[in-house]
């Protein structure tokens, strides 16, 4: 469906100070939205956290360091993406705590994606992002140990760097369980550390060097319609070393290891099954929901005649709900 996609790290200019907030036309009172929120996958692969806070519903959120492709002097510039979004740090090529928050450049932007405004979020490609809830972790581990997941692989793979080793990728197979897809990620290992400092989005701490199940979900991208690029809403992945090199020259980016990783590993990973999903603009009404439910129930009845006994009472109830609501709707309108 989508052709000629290029993947890149963002430019430093895209992130400079408060410009980052302006150029995405994000909510100006809420600079948090422009900052690099880490997915669980990024945390597990060893992203360094610069700031942590709790959202209004008590979910922890971490903000991390963003890698850029800009080379200043002989160092790589990375953004210490705290809430104020203005601190910069230089980068030793072999460190791997920086987060990849990729940018997509799509050929013939408007033709493939239609006219879209900056406020919209587009879902493109799939990637492991958020850890499965605690009880599912336990279930999945048990299923895995009993060998029940063996024939439930989907043939897809996701790759990440294990413990920051330069060129070795861990290929994690995808398992299907209860109609959702999961991979098992071995968490990043650091010396003198047994337990993570930061909890995952499911509220649980994890042990280092331990398997954590992460769910594969569509990746949200923010739109910059002026520059005709998409930027990932979250920092997706860490643990990939930039290049084993101490000094850089301005043109070195194209030949670095990280560029190679983006092109040959991350991009194919993201689009193993090409799907474009756009967040719907108009919400379905009660009536449209009702017709959908009724149609689908009818379909079920056609394809599975043995269901009809169970389906009849359901249909009756659904019809009655519609009657009640319809009557009163007319009254309210009057």
């Amino acid at each position, binding site marked *: 469906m989508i052709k000629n996609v290029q993947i890149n790290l963002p430019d430093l200019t895209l992130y400079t100070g408060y410009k980052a907030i302006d150029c995405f036309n994000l909510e100006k009172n809420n600079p948090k939205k422009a900052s690099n929120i880490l997915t669980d996958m990024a945390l597990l692969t060893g992203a360094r956290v610069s700031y942590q806070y709790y959202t209004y519903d008590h979910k922890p959120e971490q903000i991390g360091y963003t890698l850029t492709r800009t080379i200043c002097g002989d160092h790589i510039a990375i953004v210490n993406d705290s809430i104020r979004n203005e601190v910069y740090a230089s980068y030793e090529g072999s460190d791997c705590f920086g987060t990849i928050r990729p940018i997509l450049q799509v050929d013939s932007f408007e033709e493939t994606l239609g006219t879209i405004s900056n406020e919209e979020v587009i879902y493109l490609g799939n990637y492991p992002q958020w850890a499965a809830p605690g009880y599912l972790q336990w279930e999945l581990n048990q299923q895995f140990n009993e060998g029940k997941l063996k024939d439930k692989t989907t043939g897809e793979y996701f790759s990440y760097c294990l413990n920051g080793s330069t060129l070795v990728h861990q290929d994690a197979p995808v398992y299907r369980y209860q109609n959702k897809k999961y991979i098992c990620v071995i968490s990043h290992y650091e010396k003198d550390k047994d337990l993570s400092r930061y909890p995952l989005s499911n509220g649980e701490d994890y042990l280092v060097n331990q398997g954590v199940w992460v769910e594969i979900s569509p990746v949200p991208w923010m739109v910059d319609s002026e520059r005709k690029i998409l930027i990932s809403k979250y920092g997706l992945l860490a643990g990939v070393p930039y290049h084993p090199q101490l000094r850089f020259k301005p043109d070195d980016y194209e030949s670095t290891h990280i560029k190679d990783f983006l092109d040959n590993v991350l991009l194919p990973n993201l689009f193993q099954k090409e799907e474009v999903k756009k967040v719907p603009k108009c919400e379905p009404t*009660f009536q449209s*929901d009702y017709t959908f*439910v009724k149609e689908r129930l009818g379909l*079920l009845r056609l394809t599975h005649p043995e269901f009809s006994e169970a*389906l009849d*009472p359901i249909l009756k109830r659904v019809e009655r*709900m519609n009657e009640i609501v319809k009557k*009163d*709707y007319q009254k*309210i309108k009057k």
Partner: protein
Amino acid sequence: MFPTSNLKLSVPSVEQLVSFSDLKLNEGNLTPLTQFALISGVRYQFQHGHKRGFLYTHYEGEGKLKTFDDTGKVKNIDCSKENVVRPLLQNVDFAWVDANKRKNNEGLWEVILGRYPQFVASIAIQDELTKAIYVDPYELSSPTGVTYSLGHCKVALYHYKGKDYTPIYTNDPGTVLSNSRTYASEDLTWFKVSPVAWLVDEKNHLLISKYGLVSFSSSVKVKDYELNCLNSFLEMTLNKELFQNIAETNNHLALSRKECTLQDDFIFVQERLNLLRASHPESLELITSIQERVTGMEEKVQKDYMPKIKVIK
């Protein structure tokens, strides 16, 4: 005239339950539960794929509490474990009941009286409320000072956009409620405060609640005092809480009845679809898509359509 005073709550005795023969409450049927009862920690068992609880009952003249098990036998019960209270309502003016009763889906007479937190609000509304309570607590107000007790805590009633909700922290990780969200421990959950439906026993002029409403456990372990403990809970706490804003339900009886019917229908449809989904995994995707839309319908009904009820001070 509407019955407003001298309402008496108690747990049904075994003899009374047997006399409810038309209602078939004692033939191996465990009690259907509200989600508030589930979240208050009730002990449950699966029956025909649904979660059902054990209700409190007793022999008249004998101080001990009993329960029916799933085969319909009477068993002794340990009050320190969480079983469900399915209260019996006495001293109701039956002329009023006869005028206002309606037949429900199972063909039983049903009447609506009092309000209590029973079912969980849909996800969209929960998110709105949670946001509201952190961002702008003044938008939410509890003008009546109404509270509901859950164990040893009291939860306040909040009024939001013309409807009543009460916030509860879950204590049971992995609980799945009707809005199909899975709750971790200590998640903030919002419950709708909705009208309570009662089944009518015409012979003995009694009302028994349609669902088990709340769990009860007593730390007092003195012999024969368990029934007294439970009765004092019913009289001092539940009676007040159920009927503290009884005038509202009275003034909007027709609306309340519709609210109850819609609520019942949604629960019924979701439960049946869940059963279908479990028994036929091959059509999982289709049924899941239907369920999502049903949830959507429920949300819209709750958000836009459901008639707004004014709080009377």
